[in-house]
């Protein structure tokens, strides 16, 4: 059946309103978008790393999660969900459960790129039938916008502040999608919120319904951390894609690289940087070299991605 956003939005929400995420937060958009890809009859067992999505979605005694949901700690959603999935296999084998369950882990970039990296890598290597979703907002937003290994170079974060001696984060963003591809798992996808959410929906479906461990990296902007107006979520995502800062692509079994979208006119990276307060200092006189460096980095990554996808 062809994708139809209107029909998709008519489905009952599996992550409902009433949660306490900020207006314009990308995390809830990611969670709702992913869960819409579940078949209505399928049960889901959802895990979440400590982070904005956890502390805003499940405040005792309220929960926004309509499916079974577990949070245990920050660095271990990969392991926690792999335990649940192993239990499900044991119970299936023993004939103690009939229903079909899908296992979905959510983590922010802190819980995925950094503190939860080992647990994620282990879960993927062991081959659990689960999806790991990273809602990547490029800093530790829950604790107050500290830099992560996902924070882009030069971004102003509270532990990599743009000062007179050190102009923001010095290191480049870790390429987690490629790191996961190197696990040679059946499916890895990179997406964000674009036009009618078709790319997100299709990748979420593939990730959920491909047997084995799968990973989906979703750029999920944070208006507070990135410092742009709440209502501009979709514009920011579009610019990330049109500048090739965040290409849309997928990798099958670590071997087959597929580019899902090629901008007709690749926009300069400064179009993406300018609307975001975290890059403000890059536009001060004398800092042109920073924008140039950012452009070179994007170009290099993009060119190598194109090569791999051809």
């Amino acid at each position, binding site marked *: 059946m062809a994708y139809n956003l209107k029909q998709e939005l008519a489905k009952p929400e599996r992550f409902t309103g009433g949660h306490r995420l900020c207006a314009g937060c990308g995390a809830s958009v990611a969670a709702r978008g992913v869960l819409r890809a579940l078949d209505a009859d399928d049960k889901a067992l959802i895990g979440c790393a400590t982070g904005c999505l956890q502390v805003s979605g*499940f405040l005792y005694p309220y929960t926004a999660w309509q499916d079974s949901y577990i949070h*245990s700690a920050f*660095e271990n959603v990969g*392991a926690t969900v792999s335990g649940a999935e192993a239990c499900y296999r044991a119970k299936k084998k023993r004939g103690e459960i009939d229903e079909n369950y899908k296992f979905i882990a959510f983590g922010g970039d802190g819980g995925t790129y950094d503190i939860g990296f080992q647990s994620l890598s*282990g879960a993927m290597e062991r081959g659990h039938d689960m999806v790991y979703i990273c809602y990547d907002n490029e800093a530790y937003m829950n604790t107050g916008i500290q830099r992560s290994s996902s924070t882009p170079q030069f971004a102003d974060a509270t532990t990599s502040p743009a000062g007179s001696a050190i102009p923001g984060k010095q290191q480049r963003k870790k390429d987690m999608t490629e790191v996961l591809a190197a696990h040679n798992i059946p499916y890895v996808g990179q997406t964000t919120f674009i036009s009618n959410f078709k790319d997100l929906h299709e990748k979420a479906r593939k990730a959920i319904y491909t047997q084995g461990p799968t990973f989906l990296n979703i750029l999920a902007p944070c208006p507070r951390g990135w410092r742009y107006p709440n209502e501009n979520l979709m514009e920011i995502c579009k610019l990330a894609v049109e500048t090739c800062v965040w290409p849309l692509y997928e990798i099958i079994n670590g071997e087959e690289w597929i580019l899902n979208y090629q901008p007709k006119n690749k926009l300069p990276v400064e179009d993406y940087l300018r609307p975001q307060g975290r890059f403000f200092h890059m536009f001060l006189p004398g800092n042109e070299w920073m924008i140039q460096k950012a452009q070179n980095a994007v170009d290099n990554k993009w060119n190598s991605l194109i090569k791999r996808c051809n």
Partner: protein
Amino acid sequence: MAIRDRLSGNEAVAHALKQIGPDVMAAFPITPSTEIPQYFSAYASNGEVDTEFVAVESEHSALSACVGVAASGGRAVTATSSCGLALMWEMLYVASSMRLPIVLAVVNRALTGPININNDHSDSMGARDSGWIQLYAENNQEVYDNTIMAYRIGEHPDVKLPVMACQDGFITSHGIENIELLESDKVTSFIGTFNPDVRLLNPKHPVSMGPYSNASYYMEWKCQQAYAMKQAKQVILDISKEYANISGREYGLFEEYKMEDAERAIVIIGSSAGTAKATVDSLREKGEKVGLIKIRVFRPFPMDELAKALGHVKAVAVMDKAESFSACGGPLFAETRSACYGIPNAPKMINYVYGLGGRDVHVGCIAHVYSDLEKIIKTGDIGETYRHLSVRE
């Protein structure tokens, strides 16, 4: 008929787990507990169990996976020692707060700094306040029995807490002893099935577990855990009695050895109790009124019962196989002295920290402790309360 065998402590635990058949074992190797998942993975590979064996990439993930299993409604088990238990620390509290009856086979080993693979109790003693029930074993038979009882105790509706079944690294884990095993069908019917009312894999009633819970509810959460730990004492006694009916082996919260008329006593945990009993026997032959108490259940702590058992004794040495760096004694000492505070004619009490990192403890060491107690009774002078046994000056 019980089955007679010769097994190491690790084999005994693995065998108990084979008979129990949990849904999932998630484990990471660390000396000296490594053999437990090793034996168990062989059972899984050979089709002797239908348990899912998950070879996780760390102990933190081992316990995290067990949390996922138990929250889903399955029986979970892991095994670890020393630094492995230390790496689990964060998740110990998560598991107990979620009221998940996970069983953790602890093979006690010294914590690193410097690295040391031998036995003491610094690992599990450090975890004593994490909301887990702690059962300690003197020998291979006891760790086998405790492992089986652990599931029943933790899963009891009045308790719902995780349980550590501890044994001494190498001393019992690798020492082979004669042991009596139960028939597997007896174990199966003793442990029954695990059907928690709240579980993730309940298609009719999805649940959310592990909330953010601030000042408005956190304290009720903790009080419920504390209440469950209080309830656990009676449950442990009841289940131990039930176990005695099928095994013929009786267990309480602690064992009293020649305590009836004892004037001097030591309080001790684990395998050193065996050495201490031999010491008691030889001193008794000389007519000395000595006895010992071996703690089996450290959490919940048998405070009132211990006070009663020590009430008539003149002098007590509490033996800690863990240094707590409190500058005034080890954890067992702190709790035992607290238990005896306020009882009429409370015994004079000293603390010996002993056997750290596998420092040998022999009959002579324990005899030395009893002779110190004799001096205290004779002179009425306690002297230094906080002492270290068999240490270079």
